[in-house]
């Protein structure tokens, strides 16, 4: 057994290297096999992502009222500018149209003049030619009219597009304008829910009303209720307050806050409610 010293060392190193490579290969293999199994578990949790989006929307709307207002003002300005531009464009188009019409009239007059001159010279001979010219002229006119119409159509289309984009850009803003009735509807809903949970105190009288300030979170959960203006009857105030607390959560408002968080933030994050039950019999 005459193994050279160096060769033996080399053999040991290569053996150790082989061991190392094998170990790493094994580990990588294990990971590759194990990983795919884990990834299938992960997919089950996908639906949670929706909620993550909601959390993002909330603080922005809450914290940046000022910026919102600025944005709104910018949107209004933009719209005004757009309208102005549109008006200018319209005016220009009208001018062009008028010019074209004038031109057409002039041409017609000229043609007629020529024709009359010609008719003076050779009436019968030109009868057919005149007819042809007339037809041609008519065609030209028709063409022009069609052109004008097409341009108008185009303009209308671009205007409609601009309007649509403007609508898009300030979608929320317009939606807010439209949503006045929506807000009223929700207010009614809130009122109904409160009245449904209200225990009428004995001392309650017709015409009593108390103004409550209610704070909600986007889930519709009531987080605070205070009496802003007392009805003069502490028992009535307390009963109203307790009714709100008893409702606890306005389910429909959660839908609202999901559909248009801005509207919710503006109208229902903190709002005043005039509590005036109508079904007082006394």
């Amino acid at each position, binding site marked *: *057994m*005459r*193994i*050279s*010293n160096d060769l*033996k060392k080399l053999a*040991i*190193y290569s*053996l*150790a*290297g082989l*061991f*190392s*490579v094998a*170990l*790493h290969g094994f*580990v990588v293999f294990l*990971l*590759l096999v194990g*990983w*795919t199994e884990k*990834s*299938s578990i*992960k*997919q089950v949790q*996908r639906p*949670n*992502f929706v909620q*993550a*989006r909601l959390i*993002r929307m909330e603080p922005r709307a809450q914290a940046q009222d000022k910026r919102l207002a600025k944005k709104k003002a910018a949107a209004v300005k933009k719209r005004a500018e757009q309208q102005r531009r549109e008006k200018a464009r319209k005016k220009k188009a009208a001018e062009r149209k008028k010019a074209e019409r004038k031109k057409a009239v002039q041409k017609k007059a000229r043609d007629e003049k020529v024709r009359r001159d010609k008719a003076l010279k050779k009436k019968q001979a030109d009868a057919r030619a005149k007819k042809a010219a007339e037809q041609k002229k008519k065609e030209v006119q028709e063409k022009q009219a069609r052109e004008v119409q097409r341009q108008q159509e185009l303009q209308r289309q671009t205007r409609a597009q601009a309007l649509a984009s403007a609508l898009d850009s300030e979608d929320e803003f317009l939606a807010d304008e439209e949503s006045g009735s929506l807000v009223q509807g929700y207010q009614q809903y809130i009122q109904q829910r409160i009245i449904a949970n209200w225990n009428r105190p004995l001392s309650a009288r017709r015409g009593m009303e108390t103004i409550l300030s209610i704070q909600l979170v986007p889930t519709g959960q009531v987080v605070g209720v205070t009496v802003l203006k007392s009805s003069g009857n502490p028992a009535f105030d307390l009963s109203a307050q307790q009714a709100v607390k008893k409702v606890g959560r306005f389910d429909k408002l959660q839908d609202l806050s999901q559909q248009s968080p801005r509207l919710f933030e503006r109208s229902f994050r903190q709002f005043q409610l005039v509590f005036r039950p109508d079904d007082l019999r006394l």
Partner: protein
Amino acid sequence: MPEQQLSLLSLVIGASVPVQLVMFILLLASMVSWLMIGQRWWYLRQMSGGFKAFEGTFWSGIDLNELFREGSVRLNDNEVVDGVENVFRSGFREFNRLTKNEGTDPDAVMEGTERAMRVALSREEEKLNTHLPFLASVASVSPYIGLFGTVWGIMQSFRGLATMQQATLAVVAPGISEALIATAMGLFAAIPAVLAYNRFSADADALYGRYDTFADEFTSLLHRRVHSS
């Protein structure tokens, strides 16, 4: 399972270049450190076995000249003479050389012998400790390298997030997952290296201590011989 794009392989391949570089470095470090571990393990086992065998023969009452000659024969056969036998051989050689010429001061003989053995000992210690600094380096540095890769990857994925309109978890998750692989690899390289370094440096220390003890014993043996004659 409709979607399986999130496999480890695709994550590694899809990683950004610096992260891939980090992963490559860590893989290399891990492989080399395992090579060192294998080599060290084998060498230290060999050395401790050899020490036991040599000590057995040494204290069995064998003639020291015989033992020395036997080692020379093995050396001529190109076989390995390692560890404590080297200490013995260099000490004995020096001792013989110094005692050959008559009238040398016994203290001078002992001094020379001790010096020779000290040199051999320090050489053996060096052999015992080879590669251990490398293991220590891998153990301490590779988590940082991995962490760097992770931080870089997360940085990139958040930078990508900045331009997104909708920041869902699904957008960032693959990037972070990819980045975290770097840390995992750093730890994967570091943990065995730490264990091996601690184990092997302790073993090497113990073995060196035994060599040292042997050298002392051998010195006292020679001391007796030089003063009795």
